[in-house]
């Protein structure tokens, strides 16, 4: 019995997993939309959520930053895309790829798929090379194609239209699974078939390869990766304590060269493995999480109080979002 309890405790969701679930629910607080089959049309869609969450999902209460960027570039002959560029810069600066590690629903989905117990593909030089593919997707599908078609006054959000699995899963499957949207079925054709196959392939890859979409395809991760050296919140290495053993890099699931580079999603899994306790999760100069050090009862009590306060505020925010999105207040 003690053995079973120990196994269950070892598999309880971590703080990071709870934050991922929380953010997925917060981004999709319009629960009524899944029942009615309609998308949310409230004013909060002016704001982009930090992670990849299709705005055609019946539950989405915010805009998708990647979709908004492509649409802004498609309309760039009319006006410069300052708003979305500013939003992306702000998110990148404050959080960077911590967004990928903590508050992206697609990241959560990939990690859950990876939990399916199968043999896994290890990272290698090939996966490191493949990780640069997302910059090609960013340059071609997110920037170049929309701009080129914009010059001909044809709006083409190329990544959303041809690739994005979030749109297929959250938007298409989310809307079409509701009987109220049956009239949309005859409109499905080659494009949906292509996107559905891509979704299935990506899901399959994620089962065998850790965060395959995040590492090799996601242009949003590529954008946030540019802010790796400047972002405020994330995993930081204390130079004085680091002995360059490379354990953090070897144990990391992403294709990092060093902790905190453009591939690092700041998940913090390397913190407890560091032999010299050189790694910590920081917000500027404030340490949010460091190596499991033995702390006194007073420290533990203080830490528990902070945790309870933060979670209480977070749940209050979520309740407000649920009320706002579902009751039209």
């Amino acid at each position, binding site marked *: 019995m003690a053995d079973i309890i120990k196994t269950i405790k070892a598999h309880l969701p971590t703080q990071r997993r709870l934050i991922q679930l929380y953010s997925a629910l917060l981004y999709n607080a319009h629960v009524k939309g899944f029942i009615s089959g309609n*998308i949310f049309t409230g004013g909060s*869609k*002016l704001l*982009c959520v930090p992670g990849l969450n299709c*705005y055609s999902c019946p539950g*989405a209460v*915010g805009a998708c930053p990647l*979709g908004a960027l492509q*649409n*802004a570039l498609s309309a760039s002959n009319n*006006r410069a*895309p*300052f*708003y979305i*560029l*500013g*939003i992306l*810069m*702000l998110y*990148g*600066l404050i959080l960077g790829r911590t967004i990928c590690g903590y508050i992206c629903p697609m990241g959560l989905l990939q990690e859950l798929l990876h939990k*399916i*117990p*199968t043999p*896994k593909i*290890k*990272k290698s030089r090939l996966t490191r090379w493949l990780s640069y593919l997302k910059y090609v997707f960013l340059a071609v599908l997110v920037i170049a194609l929309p701009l080129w078609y914009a010059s001909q006054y044809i709006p*083409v*959000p190329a990544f*959303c*239209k041809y690739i994005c699995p979030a749109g*297929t899963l959250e*938007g*298409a499957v989310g*809307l079409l699974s509701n009987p109220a949207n049956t009239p949309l*079925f*005859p*409109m499905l*054709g080659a*494009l*949906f*078939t*292509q996107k559905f*196959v891509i979704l299935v*392939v990506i*899901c*399959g890859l994620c*089962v065998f390869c850790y965060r395959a979409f995040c590492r090799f395809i996601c242009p949003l991760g590529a954008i946030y990766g540019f802010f790796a*050296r400047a972002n*405020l919140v994330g995993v930081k*290495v204390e*130079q004085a304590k*680091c002995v*360059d053993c490379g*354990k953090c890099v*070897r*144990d990391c*699931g992403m*294709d990092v060269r*060093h902790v905190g580079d453009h591939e690092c999603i700041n998940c913090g899994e390397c913190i407890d493995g560091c032999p010299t306790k050189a790694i910590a999760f920081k917000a500027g100069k404030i340490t949010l999480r460091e190596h499991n050090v033995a702390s006194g009862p007073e420290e533990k009590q203080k830490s528990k109080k902070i945790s309870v306060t933060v979670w209480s505020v977070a749940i209050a925010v979520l309740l407000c979002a649920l009320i706002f999105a579902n009751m039209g207040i």
Partner: protein
Amino acid sequence: MEKLSSTLKIAVAVATVLLLAFLAWSCVDMYLAGSSAENLTESGLHIYPVFSRDAVAARLRPLLPWTVAYIGLLCVCTAVTAKDKVKRNRSSNAAYARAGEGKNTGLVRMVLLAAAILFILLGVMNGGAGDVLIKAKNICTECIGLG
């Protein structure tokens, strides 16, 4: 026990690939059947829709018992492998563990923050924010595969 664990993992891997392959194939097959010459009029219009709720349901119904079996296999495999030590994704890539903040990181942050706020304000003033809202309030037909 280790042999059983690895056998189950391979079984789950094969089952996962087969399930996903069936889903993908069903979608492609429905599209090809609906786009065939038999379903097209002389003017190129479809006689019956390529995809319909009933057709999709008919395709997915046979999958149900296999999905239940897959979930059962997953539960068994998870129970058996639960105690397995987590094998770290070790790689032999050169590791460069050191990374640190440069001397000018603070300045770069301030400049980027100022630029971000300025861009957001400019975007609100030139109507870019309004465009985001208008696009997000309507179903993005390209995003969901309607073209």
